[in-house]
């Protein structure tokens, strides 16, 4: 096989792995959008906040350390212990559930029956608030996150492909575990939504609020549940991105990459979020590889958005979205 093709395949595989992460963030958007019609701009920041909290707990940081030191003139620098990764993940999840509950109690419950644009604005506010809160609680320096996932070159793939094609593919172990975890997460979500009472209630609320009320479903409970699940998805995404490129505030910008993913996949489709994520991941890497050199590179910054724009023109409901048919 010619080298160029092999390179392209390697690039594609790496694109798939990046796509998995986009898909994870997009999934969080879809979950909340389906259940409550809210486009949650804060989803990316939730991933950041979850990752910050996880690192903070693992390293035994005192929340609001800097603030406490300034106000009380103390010199606290951490609890002096470290927490094992699994326990820290569980504790972070607890924090995310509390966050979900607070968002509903303090924000969404007061905005019931408001226009979607108002709810959207509220989530923008939420995003900035959460970013600031994360900064204040855990500090703004870049942190390494290591929850014990395998990292670095996967030698098995490298050797196998070298023996087959005479060229070893470079695939990161971290990307492979991300893909596996994402697959498990999606499978779990599907089982949850199809076979459990809560899942059925969640689908019911996503479909029709009034009807859901009439069969005895509490909307508030379902919303807290949805935001908690979105928090969990954000945590998983945060762990993956954090492990890959460190926990830093630019993590919240990945939320923007989820937008084109959603436009491709449709805002209401879970398979859409996944396929959309993969297409954008592969597309932008391949485009950079094939066309990038001709136009001076840096196409990854805009490729996804242009693709989304094309989709908006020709297929506004996305690949899997429900087509809107208005009866007149």
């Amino acid at each position: 096989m010619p080298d160029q093709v092999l390179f392209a395949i390697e690039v594609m595989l790496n694109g798939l792995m990046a796509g998995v992460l986009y898909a994870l963030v997009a999934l969080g958007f879809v979950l909340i959008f389906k259940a409550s019609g809210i486009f949650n701009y804060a989803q990316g920041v939730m991933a950041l906040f979850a990752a910050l909290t996880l690192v903070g707990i693992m390293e035994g940081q005192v929340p609001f350390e800097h603030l406490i030191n300034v106000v009380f003139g103390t010199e606290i620098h951490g609890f002096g212990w470290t927490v094992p990764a699994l326990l820290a993940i569980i504790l972070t999840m607890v924090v995310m559930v509390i966050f979900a509950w607070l968002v509903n109690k303090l924000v969404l419950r007061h905005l019931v029956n408001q226009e979607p644009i108002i709810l959207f604005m509220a989530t923008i506010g939420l995003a900035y608030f959460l970013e600031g809160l994360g900064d204040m609680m855990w500090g703004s320096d870049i942190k390494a996150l290591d929850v014990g996932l395998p990292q670095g070159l996967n030698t098995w793939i490298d050797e196998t492909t070298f023996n087959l094609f005479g060229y070893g593919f470079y695939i990161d172990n971290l990307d492979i575990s991300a893909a596996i975890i994402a697959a498990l997460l999606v499978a779990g979500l599907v089982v949850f939504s199809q076979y459990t009472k809560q899942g059925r209630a969640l689908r019911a609320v996503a479909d029709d609020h009034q009807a859901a009320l009439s069969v005895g479903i509490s909307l508030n409970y379902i919303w807290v549940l949805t935001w908690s699940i979105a928090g969990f998805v954000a945590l998983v995404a945060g762990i993956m991105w954090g492990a890959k490129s460190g926990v830093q505030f630019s993590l919240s910008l990945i939320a923007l990459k989820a937008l084109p993913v959603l436009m491709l996949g449709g805002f209401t489709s879970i398979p859409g979020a996944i396929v959309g994520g993969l297409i954008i991941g592969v597309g932008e890497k391949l485009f950079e590889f094939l066309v990038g050199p001709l136009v001076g590179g840096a196409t990854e910054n805009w490729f996804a958005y242009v693709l989304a724009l094309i989709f908006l023109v020709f297929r506004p409901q996305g690949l899997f979205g429900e087509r809107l048919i208005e009866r007149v």
Partner: protein
Amino acid sequence: MLDVATDPGADQGRITGETLLDLRNITLRFGGVEAIKNISFDIREGEIRAIIGPNGAGKSSMLNVISGFYVPQEGEVWFNGSRRPPMKPYEVARQGIARTFQNIALFQGMTVLDNVMTGRLNAMNAGTMSQALWFGKARREEVENREKVERVIDILEIQHIRKVPVGRLPYGLKKRVELARALAAEPHLLLLDEPMAGMNVEEKEDMSRFILDVNDELGTTIALIEHDMGVVMDLSDRVVVMDYGRKIGDGSPDEVRNNQEVIDAYLGVSHD
């Protein structure tokens, strides 16, 4: 005179049970508008109670008060012998009051069977894990619930569309599926908001038969709003008549039919 059936129906005058729901001096306002003005009436166990009246009389508002979608400013709702505190609609549903809507509210994306199964959500209490993994209590529960749902599906004769997504069904069948979902919850009280609106004669006859079957076979107490006077007179044991938010008549179909105020409300009176 009124467009009513001449035969009052065999069911009339039968003895029904004790008071299930008692509405006392209900007043409901939207801003300055009084939608319901100091209305009292009761619904007895096992009966079919109709609420009729011209458009805008406040019938649907009344039903929404009973099902908890509206909270009246004044008055008391007594259910099953005790006074009901202000409640959210889902809490009312859990108490055993199921309802259908004037403009069908179904879960469009789900199949008929899934829609009807949502009616049983509150009867399920196995753990989430057990449900996800499909063992133990969850399994027994699901089987039990399926049996109950199948019975309802059987009574309403919708077996042939069990697996069809609701969005694809014609209007008349959607109404029937909505009724099935409400029934699946095994309610003490079933509220039907214009179950026959927009139906042709044949569909209306079917629906009437189903309502009677449900009342008869399952013993469900039913309160319904309906415009078709023939249907109302045939189906109901007792009728409440509303006009401009007031109650202007209450009694057996025969009594109501001969009530001068009711006749005026429907035909209009000259004011000269």
